[in-house]
């Protein structure tokens, strides 16, 4: 079978696409449409509709979402069925501003010719025709700030390295996207690896860097693969030659799973083959970094912005955004919303627009968003009219962070969310600073007590007190920001903490120690699935759950075909051991 009118079929096979089954779809289409050109592309950001297939024909292109490797898909494709196309919601398309991700999912990530046809490496040629100082100036004028979360002005950072005289100068791309819940950098590396690499080469020209490293998480095998292919293509085309009079090598180093390595000095230690422990600054990396040489570190998204700035000019770039935050920002939207995915929006857009319009979250069911991962904080729905930029989010006690944006629904417990982040940070603390090493552990234990129904008012006071001390007594960003999730939830959701402590209740019915399970006898059809599946035999023959035995594993809720089992307030369920029932 073939499809004569079809020029090309594109399938999104970035990690999220593959996880949704894109590889099976690809195999199926390749087997059934042998004469049609079928290409694997990156991610267009509409992750909720993965796997995605785009058909290019003489009369335009058609996008199909949530496809399955079945005849039905072939029929749709061959008929170019416009009815079955994925309708991209105008609420999203109107608000989005695709600059950095303009080519993501449109071109084959590992095809340098396609990238060049779309204007790729023209910015590099232009930059090389300019003096180094002019390139640095252009980046300064653009107002670009570090996209890794810190928000330090990129041009100024570049000028520090450019000013150094040294035998070797090191440029590192921080691709150790460690924030759980963030996937902007992964998507960029998988979908448009050349764009980031072009940014790195421009930076090398501007700063006089002689050695280029990419420090990438080992959890991102596809990103590493695509980058390696892209680097080889750069070498074949000799694009890395004659920059500062040298031929530059770009070396990928895989991280080995340590969150703290996102911190500059820890990252450098890890690149040197050591334990990833941060050190005191000064000396700053631009004075003394990798193996003692001046070193500059930028994030993936920062580098991916560079070709756009050079190609379009700083002024055009700076026309987008707010006074102090220019350009666009990528956000990884996930959590309790209808359309999770990767979005690119101009700085200054409101949180409400991102969460409700683009993400399609239910206005009546959102409690807060969490930005910046374990270093960030939560912002309650009352403040969703805030214009997103580095400074306004900071003022609310959260941070811009690298771009993870998790929507938290009303049915989630904020104390449990804070406990989750401290569970993460206390394990990821490198152990160098006592306040971070011991303090985060004590905070975690305190939060465990509160969510476990054993907390007291002293625990809340302790959390507030120790938070300040950890922030002051820690050397690096990990410790300095680790208490943020607790501080911001205490600021906006103190009532939840107090309800856990004083009334031993979790309103959201999420903390296992503070809830019971019960069977609604009117809905129950006596199918016995709960009895059969309960791992601790807590369901009696007459369908009553004994909460003294129940471990709250939720298995019965999952297997019940009639949704007859639910979580209820502590004390409302049945206990065979009556003493526990006193609440």
């Amino acid at each position, binding site marked *: 079978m073939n499809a004569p009118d079809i020029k090309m079929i594109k399938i999104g096979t970035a990690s999220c696409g593959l996880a949704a089954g894109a590889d099976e779809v690809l195999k199926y289409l390749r087997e059934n449409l042998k004469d049609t050109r079928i290409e694997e592309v990156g991610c267009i950001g509409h*992750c909720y509709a993965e796997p995605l297939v785009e058909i290019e024909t003489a009369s335009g292109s058609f996008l199909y979402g949530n496809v399955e490797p079945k005849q039905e898909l072939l029929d749709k494709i061959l008929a170019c069925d416009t009815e079955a196309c994925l309708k991209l919601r105008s609420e999203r398309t109107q608000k989005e501003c695709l600059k950095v991700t303009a080519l993501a999912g449109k071109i084959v990530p590992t095809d340098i010719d396609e990238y060049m046809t779309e204007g790729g490496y023209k910015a590099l040629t232009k930059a090389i025709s300019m003096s180094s100082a002019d390139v640095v100036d252009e980046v300064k004028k653009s107002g670009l700030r570090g996209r890794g979360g810190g928000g330090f002005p990129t041009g100024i950072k570049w000028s520090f390295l450019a000013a150094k005289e040294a035998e070797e100068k090191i440029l590192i791309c921080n691709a150790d996207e460690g924030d759980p819940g963030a996937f902007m950098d992964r998507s960029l590396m998988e979908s448009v690896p050349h764009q980031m690499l072009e940014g790195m080469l421009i930076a090398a020209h501007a700063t006089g860097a002689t050695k280029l490293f990419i420090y990438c998480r080992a959890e991102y*095998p596809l990103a590493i693969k695509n980058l390696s292919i892209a680097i080889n293509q750069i070498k074949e085309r000799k694009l890395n030659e004659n920059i500062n009079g040298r031929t530059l090598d770009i070396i990928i*180093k895989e991280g080995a799973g340590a969150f703290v390595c996102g911190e500059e000095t820890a990252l450098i230690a890890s690149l040197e083959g050591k*334990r990833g422990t941060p050190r005191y600054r000064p000396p700053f990396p631009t004075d003394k970094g990798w193996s003692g040489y001046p070193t500059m570190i930028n994030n993936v998204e920062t580098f991916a912005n560079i070709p756009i700035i050079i190609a379009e000019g700083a002024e055009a770039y700076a026309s987008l955004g707010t006074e102090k935050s220019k350009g666009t920002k990528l956000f990884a939207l*996930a959590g309790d919303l209808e359309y999770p*995915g990767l979005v690119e929006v101009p700085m200054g857009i409101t949180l409400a627009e991102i969460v409700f319009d683009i993400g399609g979250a239910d206005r009546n069911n959102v409690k807060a968003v969490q930005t910046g991962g374990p270093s960030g904080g939560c912002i309650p729905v009352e403040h969703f009219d805030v214009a997103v930029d580095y400074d306004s989010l900071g003022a609310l006690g959260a941070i811009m962070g690298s771009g993870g944006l998790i929507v938290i629904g009303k049915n989630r417990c904020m104390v449990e969310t804070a406990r989750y*982040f401290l569970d993460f940070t206390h394990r990821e603390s490198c152990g160098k600073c006592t306040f971070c090493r011991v303090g985060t552990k004590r905070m975690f234990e305190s939060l465990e007590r509160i969510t476990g129904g054993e907390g007291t008012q002293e625990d809340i006071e302790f959390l507030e007190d120790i938070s300040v001390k950890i922030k002051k007594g820690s050397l690096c960003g990990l410790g300095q920001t680790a208490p943020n999730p607790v501080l911001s939830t205490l600021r906006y959701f103190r009532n939840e903490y107090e309800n856990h402590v004083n009334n031993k209740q979790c309103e959201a019915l999420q903390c296992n120690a503070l809830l019971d399970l019960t069977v609604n006898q009117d809905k129950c059809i006596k199918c016995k699935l709960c009895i059969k599946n309960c791992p601790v035999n807590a369901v009696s023959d007459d369908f009553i759950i004994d909460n003294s035995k129940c471990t709250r*594993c939720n*298995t019965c809720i*999952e297997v019940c075909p009639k949704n007859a089992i639910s979580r209820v307030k502590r004390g409302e369920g049945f206990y065979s051991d009556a003493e526990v029932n006193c609440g």
Partner: protein
Amino acid sequence: MQDGENTMDGNYACLEEMGKEKSYLIKGLQSVQKHAGFISDDAIKAVAGYFSMPEAEVEGVVSFYAQFKRTQPGKYQISVCDGTACHIKGSSLIIEWVSTELNINNGETDKDGLFSLETVACLGCCSLAPVMSVNGKVFGKLDRKSMIKILKEYRNK
């Protein structure tokens, strides 16, 4: 170690592909683990010998990074994602269910050496939360039923 030299030729030959500078230590350990599945006591000795550094220093680096395993993992390595999005979507229940299903705790390998279970910080597929991966292949939008089906398929492979 009597067969120290032999092992260098066999299991640890991958080390020869990289320089002897200490900055290659993590890369060296990664390729040894890729080859053998984990970092054995022997491996620590061999790596320390290759980079001319004390074993304690190698052990120090191994214990620092979450990626390095000191015990033999199962044939199928299950990584349940406990990133923020997955956590919000109930990954702790997924971990508990996998644990009950395989009768092993987080960080353990079952007695047949078939499955091992670990939690990881984030697999970067947040929009499909909750997710888990088996030997690197990612499965998204999990519930108890789909999780059991996936485990069954691997068990029967």
